[in-house]
């Protein structure tokens, strides 16, 4: 082994070199740290969160947990509504959700998957507090103690909480309710709903469960617990009350909760509603992504959306096609301009450069609006065409509110992004190459095509990537001049972000768009080579 080389101070040379380099690297990192932090906070994290929404679906499981659990045992292929326990669970969940004002949010979420669910939840939410009243009345008739909040607290609260509440001096918030462990095992359903009741009372109403009579659904839960387990054993002072109730319960008049819900709205009889709830009950879903490509989840698995609801694939395809058209138009229009810029004498080139850059200094909105004026049916361009007799007055060209309008306006707007990289590449191609080619016998065209053009390809590549990627995500211009036939996928994303509020679908569409851009970039790198892209130099 070779002898270790030592630095002047006796440390190994490698170590001291590393130390010196590390300091340099740290300094470099510190220099970019503010930007990195800024981008992280304002760009990467929000985008990451937004993209996460495309698969996130916790709202269903969080809002109606009992229903989701009860639905697990439902044979969802049977094409029938779920059994009564599911409706009992839904009644309890909905009660909690109504109190927390979350049922409408869930309704909107599920409405994306099946229209009508939103109103179904809203309507049912208004009446759900009556469910279980039959049981309340019978329990109270059996013993008025069931009406007393203290009875419930004594039955279900953990002694620790009772002690804590007595020690509480009345200022600030009451100690959070703690469910006794015994109650959880003996009266599971009751304990579960009462815990939610206590939480809602404490957090939403700023009241105490020790002073509020429980909801009717709590009595429903108690009835269910007692029917399910008639021989339950409760210790303590309330054991007599519970055991007498347990004895009386079999003779209680019952309430058909299924019928009650069907009374709220006929749609509860529709197995498809339950199918939808069941399908979208997991915490994560690929449903948004399926929707983004005109697919949907059904009983039988993934299937196409109905023909009249398929729009996204068309939109993606149109976005691609139009972006491609815009890119090609930009190449065709920009190449000669870039050539002139690169080959004119400096003074004229600067003048021309200012003309190229002028649009950059004008607001995008102004430019797009200008196109609206120019392109419309009674606009300047049509007037001109009619005046020179190119089109008949009663047969004016439709140049706006369609794909043509979008392509014209966006080509104009994105043209500088093609010209500038082209120009900076062309600037580095000396005129002597053309002269050399001509001196070797090439005609002007051959000299251009065989010698000049291949050297300008990196500029075309850079410009095309720039223009294509910019246009694929363009929003304002298609929105203003595109009408319905000329809008891009980004307009649909914007619609879901700001109008339909279906952020999950918007995120999925955005994620797909991002994936397409990255895939194209990758393909470009494989075919042309990203090293061949020059923005100058």
């Amino acid at each position: 082994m070779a002898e270790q080389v030592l630095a002047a101070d006796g440390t190994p040379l490698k170590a001291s070199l590393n130390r010196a380099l590390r300091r340099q690297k740290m300094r470099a990192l510190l220099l970019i740290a503010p930007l990195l932090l800024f981008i992280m906070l304002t760009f990467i994290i929000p985008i990451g969160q937004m993209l996460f929404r495309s698969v996130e679906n916790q709202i269903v499981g969080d809002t109606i947990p009992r229903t989701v659990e009860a639905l697990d045992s439902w044979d969802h292929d049977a094409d029938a509504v779920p059994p009564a326990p599911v409706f009992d669970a839904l009644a309890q969940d909905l009660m909690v959700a109504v109190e927390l004002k979350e049922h409408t949010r869930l309704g909107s979420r599920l409405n994306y998957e099946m229209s009508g669910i939103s109103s179904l939840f809203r309507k049912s939410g208004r009446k759900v507090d009556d469910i279980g009243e039959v049981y309340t009345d019978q329990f109270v008739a059996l013993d008025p103690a069931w009406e007393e909040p203290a009875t419930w607290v004594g039955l279900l609260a953990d002694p620790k909480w009772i002690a804590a509440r007595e020690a509480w001096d009345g200022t600030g918030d009451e100690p959070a309710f703690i469910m006794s462990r015994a109650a959880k095992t003996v009266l599971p359903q009751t304990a579960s709903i009462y815990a939610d009741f206590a939480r809602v009372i404490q957090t939403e109403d700023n009241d105490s469960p020790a002073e509020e009579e429980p909801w009717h659904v709590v009595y429903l839960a108690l009835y269910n617990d007692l029917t399910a387990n008639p021989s339950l054993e409760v210790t303590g002072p309330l054991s007599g009350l519970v055991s007498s109730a347990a004895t009386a319960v079999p003779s209680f008049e019952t309430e058909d909760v299924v019928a009650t819900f069907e009374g709220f709205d006929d749609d509860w009889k529709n197995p498809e509603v339950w199918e939808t709830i069941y399908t979208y009950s997991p915490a994560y879903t690929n449903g948004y992504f399926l929707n983004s490509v005109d697919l949907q989840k059904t009983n039988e698995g993934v299937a196409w959306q109905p023909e009249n609801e398929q729009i996204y694939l068309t939109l993606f395809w149109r976005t691609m096609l139009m972006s491609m058209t815009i890119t090609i138009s930009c190449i065709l229009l920009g190449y000669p301009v870039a050539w002139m810029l690169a080959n004119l004498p400096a003074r004229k080139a600067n003048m021309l450069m200012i003309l190229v850059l002028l649009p950059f200094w004008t607001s995008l909105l102004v430019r797009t609006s200008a196109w609206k004026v120019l392109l419309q049916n009674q606009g300047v361009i049509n007037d001109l065409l009619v005046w020179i007799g190119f089109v008949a007055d009663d047969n004016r060209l439709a140049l706006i509110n369609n794909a043509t309008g979008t392509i014209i306006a966006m080509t104009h707007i994105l043209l500088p992004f093609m010209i500038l990289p082209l120009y900076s590449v062309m600037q580095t191609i000396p005129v002597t190459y053309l002269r050399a080619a001509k001196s070797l016998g090439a005609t002007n065209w051959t000299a251009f095509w065989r010698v000049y053009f291949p050297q300008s390809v990196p500029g075309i590549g850079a410009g095309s990537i720039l223009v294509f990627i910019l246009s694929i995500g363009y929003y304002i211009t298609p929105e203003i001049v595109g009408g319905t036939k000329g809008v891009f996928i980004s307009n649909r994303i914007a619609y879901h972000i700001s109008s339909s509020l279906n952020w999950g679908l918007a995120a999925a569409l955005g994620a797909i768009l991002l994936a397409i851009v990255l895939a194209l970039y990758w393909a470009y790198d494989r075919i042309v080579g990203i090293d061949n892209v020059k923005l100058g130099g």
Partner: protein
Amino acid sequence: MPILGGTGLSEAKSDNAFVEFERVQKSYDGENLVVKDLNLSMPKGEFLTMLGPSGSGKTTCLMMLAGFETATHGSIRLDGVSINNIPPHKRGIGMVFQNYALFPHMTVAENLSFPLEVRKIGKSDREEKVMRALGMVQMQDFAGRRPAQLSGGQQQRIALARALVFEPELVLMDEPLGALDKQLRETLQFEITNLAHELGITVVYVTHDQTEALTMSDRVAVFDDGRIQQLAPPDELYEAPQNSFVAQFIGENNTLEGVVQEIKGNTCIVKLDSGDVIDAIPVNVSKVGERTKVSIRPERVEFDKSRLSPDAHTLKAEVLEFIYMGDIFRTRLRVAGTDEFIIKTRNAPDQVRLTPGSQIEIGWLAEDCRALDA
């Protein structure tokens, strides 16, 4: 008409010029003439160099010949045919550019093949010609490389081969060796001249390097101010400059200013501004009283009286500086009011080494001292 290995200088008819400029003028802006009334005629097979300072019009002349610039006035003829209106690609003139202009996206072989392809020459023929041209510049092994993978000298060889591969009769070279270091430049100078003479091609070579011009050319055209100041073989140019610009531009030169005092046949007497009187041959002076610049080459100055004719005029000189340059000694003198008078002496065993501060007398043969325009 293929001429590779064909005709040589001897076959050129002097009365039948191959390249001709007749009263050619060129202006870019309509106000100033860059080339003023250029007349030039070259026989086939000649190696002619256009030499001059930058802005003297030499490159413009070359570009007009190549077809990249049009003459504002006058006519340019190639082999008796006016080419004023023939586009560059139809002129069939090979050209080597200062920065090589090898196409960077093509290999060496593709670069050489390009002029053959545009001439629609068959593939096998092309390959053969390419390899032959590469052979001429000893670059056969580099056919598959890209220009960027070659050194400057190699690139220049390829550029040369490319200009020759389609067998043009006339090859133009625009300062082709300007970007190379001295040693490589000298090697390539030698190679280019040899190749040109071997192939019998006519070459117009533009440079601002006078050594290059003198060593390579059959004739040199010295350009200044848009005109050819002198067109002559290198030795004549050096030894018999026709005017003071040429005298100063070519080689090292001592200039003394004065007035013609007397002209007798082939010699004249010039009275310098310092009052001294010297002998010279009148070149650009015609009458007594005319102002003149006399030019004497440093190596023709004698300070050993025994080597001068007894009646020669001499000047007093003071040695200011003695520089040892290996093969020669360069001594700076104060003569007739100027401190920049240089003499060069060969480093021979018996050569006197002048010491600074010493007073000497210098003189020269009258025919070495030329009285030129002022």
